[in-house]
């Protein structure tokens, strides 16, 4: 498939199924029988572990094999026929493309019927969280400055204090991170401030990251003053709370992307029944009234946030637009132009 190669040769250094190196984390949760539910996911193991425990509390006989990989690796692995019973990812566009291209099995239950229309596409893919993109700042590095609440404020603050923020900014490397690319392209679509911000960030020698957690860590340690477009799941908020005010999570008031973490049963699934039960459990939690106790937010919470004003990114064929290799090449070229106005940092 030339199309797939074109598209993902750019994302991956290797267009091959996920190798051992590409699997970032893996754990086998043994069950009392030899039935195994294989889950491939972009969600960190410690974040998702409570869900697996809850599932096994209901079905102790089922073992769960949980693998964590980056969204693009995950996407390519499924495309290449990797064996899995459930696919979970926050990169909506890549998930949608897999489903559109016929890599998902339909699943229908009372739980999927209970989902709002925007949280599912056909009977193939289901959203179980809504998570906004946020800005995480180190309070100490912002001492004496007013905290920015809009992109205009942020651009002004960065422009006015180049010394303070030089080498102190971080964001996703959209070339490697599927989620980062999704955030970037959706922001491009939604606000013209995005490119001006990129220009400014490029001049201040922004560092690029693969994952939210590392960015948050670096903000907490003070290596970064600000991380832009971090996935604002509970992990970030938790860390901000535990940092005694050193780290703060800010939602941009002018516009903030909200992504849906989605799940689908891949076409090659063996344990479709168990996969369906896991989907039902996730959706039940997604529609829960009180958000407490679980690492990931439910569906309803962020959607109603009055300051956001925008709904979550829509699951639909429009997500295919920026995955088109030509569009992607053009977007990345522009992004690199904006960001790389300096010699690359030694990494």
């Amino acid at each position, binding site marked *: 498939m030339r199309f797939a190669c074109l598209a993902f040769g750019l994302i991956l250094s290797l267009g091959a199924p996920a190798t051992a190196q590409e699997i970032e984390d893996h754990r086998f949760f043994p069950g009392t029988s030899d039935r195994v539910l294989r889950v491939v996911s972009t969600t960190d193991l410690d974040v998702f572990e409570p869900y697996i425990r809850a599932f096994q509390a209901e079905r102790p006989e089922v073992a769960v094999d949980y693998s964590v990989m980056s969204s693009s690796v995950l996407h390519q692995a499924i495309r290449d026929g990797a064996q899995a019973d459930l696919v979970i990812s926050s990169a909506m566009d890549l998930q949608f493309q897999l489903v559109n291209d016929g890599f998902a099995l339909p699943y229908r239950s009372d739980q999927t019927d209970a989902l709002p229309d925007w949280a599912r596409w056909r009977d193939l893919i289901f959203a179980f969280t809504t998570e906004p993109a946020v800005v995480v700042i180190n309070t100490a590095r912002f001492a004496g400055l007013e905290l920015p609440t809009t992109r205009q404020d942020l651009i002004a603050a960065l422009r006015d204090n180049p010394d303070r923020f030089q080498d102190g900014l971080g964001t996703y490397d959209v070339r490697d991170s599927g989620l980062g690319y999704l955030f970037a392209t959706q922001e491009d679509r939604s606000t013209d401030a995005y490119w001006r911000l990129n220009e400014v960030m490029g001049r201040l020698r922004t560092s690029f990251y693969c994952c939210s957690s590392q960015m948050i860590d670096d903000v907490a340690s003070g290596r970064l003053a600000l991380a832009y477009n971090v996935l604002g799941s509970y992990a970030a908020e938790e860390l901000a709370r535990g940092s005694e005010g050193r780290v703060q999570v800010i939602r941009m008031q002018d516009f903030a992307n909200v992504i849906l973490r989605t799940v689908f049963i891949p076409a090659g699934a063996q344990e479709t029944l168990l996969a369906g039960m896991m989907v039902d459990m996730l959706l039940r939690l997604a529609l829960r009234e009180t958000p407490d106790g679980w690492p990931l937010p439910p569906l309803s919470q962020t959607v109603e946030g009055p300051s956001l004003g925008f709904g979550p990114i829509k699951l639909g064929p429009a997500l295919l*637009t920026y995955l088109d290799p030509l569009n992607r090449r053009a977007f990345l070229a522009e992004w690199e132009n904006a960001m790389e106005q300096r010699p690359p940092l030694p990494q």
Partner: protein
Amino acid sequence: MIQTASIGQRLTLLLAGVAAALSVLSWGMVTSLAAQAAARTQDNVLAASATTIAETLRSEQGEVRLELPYAAFAMLGAISEDRVFYRVIAADEVLTGYDDLPAPATSEIGQVVFDTGQYRGAEIRMSSVTRLVLAGMERVAVTVSVAQTRDGVDAVTSDISRLAGLLSVAFFFVAVALSAIAARLSLRPLNLIAASVSRRGPSDLRPLLRAAPADLAPLLDALNRLMERLRLSIRRSEDFIAEAAHRVRTPLATVRTQAEIALRTVSDEAEKERLRRIIRAVDESARSAGQLLDHATVAYRVEDLARDRLDLSDLARQTAAALEPTAAMRDIQFTLDLTPAPIRGDAVLLDSAIRNVLDNAIKYSPEDTTVSLQIVLDAAQARLRVRDQGTGLGDGPMDVLTERFRRGGNVAGVVGSGLGLTIAAEVLRAHGGRLELENCENGSGACVSLVLPLV
């Protein structure tokens, strides 16, 4: 009578059949129109999407470039949740998209063409448009194809089809109900005619002169002609009887006269007795002939009944006076207890009725007794009660005594035709009244009441 299926049922079934056929037809038509409309909607959006993409084609440094617009796919997502595939081919080389999409039909530049085919296990609809782009010095034909699965179209079609099906079934049941009502309504005139025919009295043979639908006119005509023939036939036989009676009466009178002359001239007692017997027999015959004539007259006059203002007491008095000589022959006296009773009717017929009743009373009374005539009025009717002191009417049912030629069970030794009470009853019925027969309360004698409505 052999009964076949009722017209109403047949009509209802027929109309129900038509309704069923129309229901199925309309369901089919709505379904096919819905399918067409849904397919056309999808075609339009696909064409718009392909055209939107084609609009972004441009050349840069001798190469064909394009930027897929977000809207091109967003519009496809807006109409249905169908899977989307696309491909852009420039000069026979795939520029981007799903390179294994089926090839589009060849078309002229700038014209949108549609294909239906299979792709990745699903039926797809594909729209393609070709545009010329100037790349360097060359003109390159670039074909943009956008395809979508057809689940949305099928879902819309089956939704509308189901709705149309439900509506058709409802329509069918309403149509059947209306058919039943229509069948009943259209058979109503027929039932009305049947009812009015069966409501008629036994001797009412007047033509039916009611408004009837054109379809029933032949039936009504035939019925009226049949009744006219029947009436004429009855009239003819009554005529015949009257004529016969009349012809018999004249020679009988002659015989009687001659017998009376003979009675005066002979002196032998045995011969006298024989002649008296002849005279009595001739009298009875004349009386029977008279009654036959009376009956025929009644049949005649009842057909076109006069409605004159009359007083029942006058009639009774006159008739009693006329019969006085006959009664006197047997030493029977009339006692009259009459009050004026205004009625409407035919004097000749009523006289005939009263006469026959009185005649009977005289005939069945022993000599030297009294026959009483009494008029009793109540709110709506006058009752002329004739009471004799004879043997009464016997124990049998009273109704049969008014049948023609039927005589009571205890009349042995008394000559009679059995027509008297028949005539009286027919006359009274024609006047809207009735003849009541009973044995007198005190146990001896008959009590005959002529009941007539008061004016």
